[in-house]
């Protein structure tokens, strides 16, 4: 491998990582933009998403381990169903968390809501721990092991798939926020919830929608994660979630394009610093850089968007 090939390979690795962080970062940013709330349950909604996708592939399609390779319609059908189911169910979990646990606290000042999300995170973690167990699960991978060689670098089918899924979802979200009525309502609420309410925006519905979208993206990310690493485990939420949260802050929390940019940047930094300095130091580099960015641009790279406090 030449240095150029190596750089290209790490770029591919970093982009794959980054697109997953970006998907996950969107959930933090959507909720924060509307409610100014850091939703820590997001970490484990993502993990539950990976489990739902795994169980769908196992129980629904009889896919176990890495031995079965599907093509054509069965492949699209199995992955599509797993993806859809994990998005819808995770969206449902997100909406339930908002409706039953956070809405009663909306008028409570202070960190009560945030602490509730930490509690929910533990509940989700322990439910999976008790029902599915703590060991590493072999996430089924029905994708053919197709790889393209670009010089000495290897681009695998699953990397392309992950990029495509992430791009489609992020594009869809951007369209939704920019061009639909409810999207406009979301942006209005993010700017000024009081004014939006006075102009006839149903704030409850907007909040619920932000939780649904964020959690559904976490579900999709769980599925993508499982497919990429062939792994699902009860503790995957924390490490990935923390980096995704960092990505959201780096890009400017509340800012949708910022979260995407932050995610991709964190992924690239992680892989390139691992190459140059050593993986033992990648956390130091990531969080050190975050501190630097926040010192010079406290609102993040693209600027923070949060409700005005009146």
């Amino acid at each position, binding site marked *: 491998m030449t240095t150029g090939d*190596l750089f290209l390979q*790490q770029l591919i*690795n970093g982009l794959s990582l980054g697109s997953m962080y970006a998907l996950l970062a969107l959930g933090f940013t959507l909720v924060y933009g509307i409610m100014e709330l850091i939703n820590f349950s997001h970490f484990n909604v993502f993990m539950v998403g990976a489990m739902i996708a795994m169980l769908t592939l196992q129980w629904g399609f009889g896919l176990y381990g*890495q031995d079965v390779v599907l093509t054509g319609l069965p492949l699209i059908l199995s992955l599509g169903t797993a993806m859809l189911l994990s998005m819808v169910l995770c969206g449902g979990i997100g909406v339930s968390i908002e409706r039953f646990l956070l809405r009663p606290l909306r008028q409570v000042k202070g960190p009560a809501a945030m602490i509730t999300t930490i509690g929910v995170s533990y509940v989700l973690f322990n439910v999976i721990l008790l029902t599915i167990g703590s*060991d*590493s699960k072999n996430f089924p991978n029905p994708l053919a092991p197709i790889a393209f060689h670009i010089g000495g670098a290897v681009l*695998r089918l699953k990397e392309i798939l992950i990029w495509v899924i992430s791009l489609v979802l992020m594009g869809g979200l951007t369209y939704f926020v920019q061009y639909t009525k409810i999207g406009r309502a979301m942006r209005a609420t993010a700017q000024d919830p009081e004014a939006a309410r006075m102009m006839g925006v149903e704030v409850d519905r907007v909040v619920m929608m932000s939780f649904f979208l964020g959690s559904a993206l976490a579900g999709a990310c769980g599925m993508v994660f499982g497919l990429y*690493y062939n792994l699902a485990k009860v503790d995957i939420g924390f490490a990935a979630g923390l980096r995704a949260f960092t990505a959201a802050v780096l890009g400017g929390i509340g800012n949708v394009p910022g979260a995407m940019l932050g995610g991709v940047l964190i992924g690239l930094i992680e892989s390139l610093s691992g*190459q140059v300095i050593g993986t*033992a130091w990648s956390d130091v580099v990531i969080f050190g850089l975050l501190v630097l960015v926040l010192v010079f641009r406290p609102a993040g790279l693209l600027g923070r968007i949060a409700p005005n406090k009146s």
Partner: protein
Amino acid sequence: MISRRSTFKAAAGIAAAATIGVQSARAEDKVIKIGFSMSFTGADAENALRVSQGGVFAFEEANANKAVKGYQFLVEKLDDATATAGQYDPAQAATNARKMVSDKAIMAALGPQMSGAGKAMSPILSAGGLATITPSSTNPDITDPKFAAQYRPAGKPIYFRTVATDAYQGPNMANYMADTLKIKSVYILDDSGAYGVGLADAFQGQVEKKGVKVLGRDRLDPKAADYATILTKIKSLAPDALYYGGVGQAGVKLAKQAYDIIPTMIKAGGDGMQSADLLKGAGFPAVEGWYATVASPHVIEDPKTKDFSDKYFARFKMRPDDYTVTCYVGAQVIIEAVRAVTATGKAPTREAVRDAIQTVSLPNSLLGPISFDGNGDLKDKIISVFQIKKDATKSLEDPDAQFKYVGVAPMA
């Protein structure tokens, strides 16, 4: 970290354990009692039965052959498992040690199976001057002179082993990889845990001495999901082998991703990789070809144990395993020590038996030459090397079926 190979067998035959014992001593002979502290109930019950019968078998042979003139051996079994723990319980092991020490007829002991039990027992045995021989516990601390104040406060070693310790897995595997696998360069990873870092350090020290080029050393965060970065770096350095010191948490992810990125490189780890979790979590084909080591000899497939194996089967109607043999040899050491003491015409005492165990030499045991160093460890420390080779006829998640024995990793 890990005391011995995990086995995944149902706890069957608990009832049988109580009924099998050494035939009662004849009236004219004096009785020497040997304490067996093992996990006769709970999760490891079947193991304990299989292991302890190795010792019982040796004492039965000795009694029948009158190996020690004027004396008969009597086995006293003590269970170190409790219903609350569901397996061995260090507190119960300590109680057993006290019971054995207070029974004046007990001259030596066999056991325990687990290092956790051994740590609880050794200070008590040391105070009572009672020697024990463990057939399976491999934690290095118990016999490490650094911890002598803790595990043998009375001074002399009382904890002897017929297995090696985990401290030798790294260096011996370094020898194996340099000499047998003929690697010229290696990349070393650890999982940042105490066990993993220690293993990787010990491996690195020896592999450098053997003249193998260490192309790099890095640390995995066991909670992180992505090791593609480091594996890509390793791929670009193109070493002959990858050595990983650590347990399954990072190991499972490493094995999966290494299969994608460096599928043909030689990959090896310690007993942390010798687990069902690896087979279940990473699965085939990712785990295929990985090497792992265990700090005990693997003799049961060796032709020289066939005769023992057949006799044992005839007596107990079950097949022995490696730890049956280590326990059998442990019992032979005790018999030899008692014989040496009584041969001088003296009545055996604990003190004399302990001193005799220290100097026993069995040049041709089923495990090879047996003699102990000044800490109670074997002089010849045998580390067994296993390699994962898919056997589709058996359960793909059963370590006993999928890890194939490939040889001994030699000492320096």
